[in-house]
């Protein structure tokens, strides 16, 4: 018998890791070079403070890009902002960027926005790169076949000072979604479903590689929505292998390679994709036909059901899930065994790094056109960036939303985490296209969040209660007619 000496193929994760490894550290971790560093106003000022205390400077200023997103108000554009703390934070970032020669997509550039929307739309996010940002949703950039990590502030300092991080190598779990999604089932439903079946800590120690027919067909914006929430499943990063869809998206963007460099870049980018015979530490298969519009009912993103399901009975759950579910029902004032459909909402939020991109707004706009937001619902639409806002306005989307009774706002993180004035009040219930339903997440310590796709948020806004958008918007018929 012949010995099989064939070297098994590698995953994108391992190729990028090897390409960026500086050295093995004494504690077994790897010093990994971080090619692209993104910063924002909340988690970077303390890092610059640490650098200053140590008398260190930024080693590669051209590899760091900044924008302001968490604290910017979406209903006032003139400074000073009415919140002096927000004003102090934007000024601190401005100063740190100016002092250290860092490119800053400030509010007056037309390019400001949520950091995970700005990077891709500027062409800064590229395949085969390592990206870090002091923000857990940095996994978004994995949609391009980058290895992108959310990091703490001391690590922001490490990247500024050394352009590298001490990291432990991750295992890789391949998640295949095969077949075809039904009408009215979106990328958001895919990731909520993945988190539901694998759990909020199922990804601990893993990078998630998303693939299969559904991802092959997905646009870049849909891939970003899924990768964005990898951390909600406990995975430090998530990615999709780069392909023609990736290259088409990047072509012509401000920071994308140009001219002769473009062809070389595409060739190089393609080489990072996982080999056909790559070895995975785990593989999980999902049939797209099994996924329906998904809504969370609890206080973590895995506490989710399909729109036509009932919330679980406590007796049906194992002891760990039961305790958390009990806590969730108490906090959410929801009842076990009841449907989520029909639950009256107070607020509707469309936006965030998960679902604040142009395609999200376009998709929703076609359905809300000519309809009206329910009288008791406050509904806001927050474009993810100034670029998204500009194009949306050119297409007349702002008017469609405004006429339907949605407030059209300026770009920022807004009510995803409510560090700006957009907050829930008291125990308001919010249908939200964002990524976290933690207790108090949307600014009120007793506020309640139901996560869902932007189209489902719009349906809830219009009827005033959690609704199956497929029926309200007659999506089955619409799609069949195409």
């Amino acid at each position, binding site marked *: 018998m012949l010995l099989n000496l064939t070297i098994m193929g590698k995953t994108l994760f391992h190729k990028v890791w090897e390409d960026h490894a500086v050295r093995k550290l004494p504690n077994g971790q790897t010093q990994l070079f971080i090619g692209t560093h993104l910063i924002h106003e909340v988690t970077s*000022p303390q890092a610059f403070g640490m650098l200053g*205390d140590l008398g260190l400077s930024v080693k590669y200023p051209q590899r760091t890009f900044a924008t302001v997103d968490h604290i910017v108000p979406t209903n006032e554009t003139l400074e000073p902002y009415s919140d002096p703390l927000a004003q102090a934070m934007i000024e601190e970032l401005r100063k740190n960027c100016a002092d250290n020669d860092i490119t800053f997509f400030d509010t007056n550039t037309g390019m400001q926005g949520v950091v995970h929307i700005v990077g891709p739309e500027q062409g800064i996010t590229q395949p085969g790169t390592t990206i870090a940002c002091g923000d857990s949703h940095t996994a978004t950039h994995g949609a391009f076949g980058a290895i992108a990590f959310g990091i703490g502030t001391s690590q922001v300092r490490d990247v500024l000072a050394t352009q590298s991080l001490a990291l432990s190598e991750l295992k890789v779990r391949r998640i295949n979604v095969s077949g075809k999604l039904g009408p009215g089932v979106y990328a958001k439903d895919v990731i909520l479903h993945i988190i539901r079946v694998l759990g909020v800590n199922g990804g601990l120690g893993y990078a998630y590689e998303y693939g299969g027919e559904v991802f092959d067909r997905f646009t870049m914006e849909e891939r970003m929505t899924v990768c964005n929430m990898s951390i909600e499943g406990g995975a430090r990063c998530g990615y999709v292998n780069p392909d023609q869809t990736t290259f088409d998206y990047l072509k012509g963007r401000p920071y994308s390679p140009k001219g002769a460099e473009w062809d070389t870049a595409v060739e190089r980018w393609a080489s990072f994709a996982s080999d056909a015979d790559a070895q995975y530490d785990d593989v999980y298969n999902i049939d797209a036909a099994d996924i329906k519009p998904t809504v969370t009912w609890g206080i973590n993103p895995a506490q989710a059901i399909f729109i036509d399901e009932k919330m679980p009975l406590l007796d049906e759950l194992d002891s760990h899930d039961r305790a958390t579910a009990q806590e969730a029902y108490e906090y959410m004032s929801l009842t076990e065994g009841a449907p989520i459909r029909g639950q009256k909402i107070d607020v509707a939020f469309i936006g965030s790094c998960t679902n604040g991109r142009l395609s999200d707004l376009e998709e929703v706009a076609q359905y809300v056109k000519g309809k009206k937001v329910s009288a008791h619902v406050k509904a806001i639409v927050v474009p993810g960036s100034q670029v998204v806002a500009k194009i949306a306005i050119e297409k007349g989307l702002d008017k469609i939303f405004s006429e339907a009774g949605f407030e059209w706002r300026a770009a920022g993180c807004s009510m995803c985490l409510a560090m700006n004035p957009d907050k829930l009040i008291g125990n308001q219930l919010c249908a939200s296209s964002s990524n976290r339903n933690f207790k108090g997440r949307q600014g009120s310590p007793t506020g309640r969040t139901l996560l869902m796709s932007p189209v489902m948020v719009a349906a809830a806004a219009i009827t005033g209660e959690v609704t199956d958008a497929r029926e309200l918007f007659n999506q089955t018929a619409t799609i069949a007619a195409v």
Partner: protein
Amino acid sequence: MAHLEREPVFNHRSSRLFHLLPMIFVESRTGSRFAARFTMNTLPAIKQVSGRAVPVPGDDVDTDRIIPARFMKCVTFDGLGEFAFYDVRFDGDGNKKKHPLNEARFDGASIMLVGSNFGCGSSREHAPQSLHKFGVRALIGLSYAEIFFGNSTTLGIPCVSVDEKTLHTLVEIVESHPETELKIDLETKKITAAGNEFPLTIAESAREGLLSAEWDALALLMKDPADIETVAERLHYV
């Protein structure tokens, strides 16, 4: 190579960094200034943490609960201690809620007993920073979210894991005798409480870093800048 001596400037923003000083700077090949060698690295080794403990019940305790986002409107970590677990400890009117963190018998506890997936959610270092400033020096729990674990280790807060039975026993000991001193020993990988010993686990890289006084990675990362520059030059982007 030009040698530059810099006077360290102490700033209360990051007092632990003081341990990394003083250092010598050199001009590297690319002209960027870089600390090439630490003449003194006095980060303390963290071999044991002893103290009284307080149970913080629940699984999947997220970073928004540890430090609500509205308290992160700041440019330093200074004032975060008083806001640790704020909405868990206080109601909307600022009245104390019923929670172990509000019980006088647990005052001065420096070890938290926590459930599984503690610290899930955001990458905000504000979470372990607020716990540290609140007086927490170690966590004993079932499991931790990855970024939170790394952020805590970087601050010298060991997050050790035990099995469910051990956690249950420790909570019982602390509930009935809150004055009990717990000892976490990273060398022997044991927790001692009321004369009993329990095994603990912790990622070896973190344990190694804490024991060898290299839990803040910056000194290691700065050791050999030429290697970093080699990778930078090899890459085809930026």
